């Protein structure tokens, strides 16, 4: 029993991380129908900046709590700037280009950012200093750390905040309008460029938070970490129905649970024929299956909250 509880908890933590990163994918996709492949790298940059700031802060003798806040803010600021820069210089000029063009740009951007990070921070994994609370708890027999609890709570809060933003603010309404029809929104007086930029900024801020939490949870970061994370998060967004905020959340949590329980029970399910080496196969297989029966994802509508 406590093994199952532990596996579910493992899945929820992993899934929450996917969900926060997936939110960034889904917001951009909802508005521009663009797969921002570089989003994973923005997450990585957030982690790296935070590690650097914490390193400096520790050297200056700052206490833990203000240091965490400072590192988080620095990561968010850096990622927002990065996201805005990417949007402005790489994607905006291509907004009217054929669909494949921005996708290739995104892949190029992803490679570019990886290599820039490698030049700044090196090729090695760098440790994340233990500034977060390091307590451990037991819930229903499962071991939980403080960082994991922080991840779960943060995810829920971010999700709520984002829903409120999209549903109940001027900016959110403008986003939904652009998602429905960019030309009409423009005619109605929506400043499309500003709203798209804001979307990128918000998505990148989420990525920064995710990056810091991932690095804190696993205790390390490296230039390549964003690529696979981004890929998984993107799968999660597609699973839930890309463009849909609740879908990203659902997809993320589901993917996390599938991976965790898959690795945990795939051996028993197949009578020992397949082991945890097929964990990713299992996850992709579920994804394909879902898409075959629901071609636009679980909560599939293409755009943000198309009512």
């Amino acid at each position, binding site marked *: 029993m406590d*093994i199952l509880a*532990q*596996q579910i908890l*493992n*899945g929820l*933590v*992993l899934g929450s991380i996917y969900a926060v990163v997936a939110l960034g994918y889904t917001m951009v996709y909802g508005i521009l129908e663009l797969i921002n492949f570089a989003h994973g790298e923005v997450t990585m940059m957030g982690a790296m900046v935070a590690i650097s700031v914490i390193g400096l802060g520790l050297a200056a003798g700052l206490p833990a709590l203000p240091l965490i806040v400072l590192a988080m803010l620095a990561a968010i600021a850096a990622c927002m700037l990065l996201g805005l820069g990417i949007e402005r210089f790489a994607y905006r000029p291509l907004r009217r280009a054929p669909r494949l063009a921005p996708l290739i740009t995104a892949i190029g951007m992803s490679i570019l950012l990886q290599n820039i990070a490698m030049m700044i921070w090196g*090729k*090695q*994994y760098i*440790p994340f200093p*233990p500034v977060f609370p390091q307590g*451990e708890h037991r819930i229903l027999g499962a*071991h939980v*750390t403080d960082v994991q609890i922080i991840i779960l709570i943060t995810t829920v809060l971010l999700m709520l905040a984002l829903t409120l933003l999209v549903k109940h603010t001027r900016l959110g309404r403008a986003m939904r309008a652009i998602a429905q029809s960019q030309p009409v929104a423009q005619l109605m007086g929506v400043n499309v460029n500003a709203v798209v930029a804001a979307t990128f900024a918000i998505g990148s801020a989420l990525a920064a938070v995710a990056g810091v939490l991932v690095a804190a949870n*696993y*205790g*390390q970061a*490296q230039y*390549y*970490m964003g690529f*696979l994370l981004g890929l998984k998060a993107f799968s999660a967004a597609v699973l839930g129905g890309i463009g849909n905020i609740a879908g990203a959340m659902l997809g993320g949590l589901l993917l996390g649970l599938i*991976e*965790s*329980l*898959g*690795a*945990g029970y795939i*051996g028993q399910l197949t009578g020992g024929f397949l*082991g*945890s*080496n097929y*964990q*990713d196969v299992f996850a992709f297989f579920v994804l394909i299956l879902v898409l075959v029966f629901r071609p636009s994802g679980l909560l599939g509508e293409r755009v943000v909250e198309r009512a």
Partner: protein
Amino acid sequence: MKALSLAVCAALFLTGCGHKASDQGGDVVKIGLAAPLTGPQAQLGQDMANGARLAVDEINAGHPQIGGKPVTFRLLAEDDQADPKTATNVAQRLVDDGVAAVIGHMNSGTTIPASRIYYQAGIAQISPSATAVKYTHQGFDTAFRVMANDAQQGTVLGDFAVKTLGAHRIAIIDDRTAYGQGLADQFERTVKALGADVVDREYTTDHSTDFMAILTNIKAKKPDLVFFGGMDPQAGPMIRQMRQLGISAKFLGGDGVRTPQFITLAGPAAEGAYASTPGLPIGKMPKGPEFQAKYTAKYGPIQQYAPYAYDAVYVLAGAMEKAGSADPKTFLPVLRQTDYQGVTGPIRFDANGDLTQGAITLYQVQKGAWVPLQTFQKH
């Protein structure tokens, strides 16, 4: 026409670079070196290259003679980026440049495809670090290595786990790379033969950082030892997550784990972990401290493979001198008969080109540093 003459000019320029006249008198004997000199493993590859460079410089300073004629050794270093396809390209480049022998490659995944090209060209190859068994078991009389292979290391690790640590219930994880899987498989065979129970076998990848799911599985099986075949970026967070889940089993790994990086990444959780490395601890190598002083003065701290590459060059030069020829056809049989006291220990090859006496040392993390426990000589 213009394009053609341009091409010819370019070719002349390039070949001009390749065949620079020798600095000293006599013939030039070219020795190739292939390793990942760029990319994520560049640090280890450069370490290997520097070890070989040090040996070449030393030998040249002693005015070597082959067959009564003075010669100069020259090292041609090529970057294989740890990629199999690039490795074959690089191997071809070295063959083109007319090397007499090659030190390399570093990874098993690059060493194996490249070995075929050296074999076809009849060029001697000594890998200082490729440990996959297959490399020397392809029937190529040109392939040698100066480090214990995975089978030797996996066997020693298995012996150590059962006999020294007294493990009965063992869980095994590997990262599904040629290195990790090879080591883990040999370890599994050994501990099973010694009567221990392999209670769980789990798998991860060489890019993973989350091992909670497989470790939870392992926890359910209550092992007293967890073995990991893989590298430090995974081993670090793995042992942290083990302790976090309340698994108190001992942790054992191969040379991929026995790095300073592992201790940095694992933090306090690293304490008490065991890992092995082929060869003797540098302090116990016959000429280890002397080598360490020379190397460190020139290139900084030794990473891992420098002493092996250093020995490989001396073994090659020795065989050439003895055979009186830098022609692989002549010196290859002599190379096979090598009996040399190197920095890393005695070097003698068996019929496959493996070391007959590969030493393997076990280490434990004590107070934040790797401390050698005991050394096994091949029995």
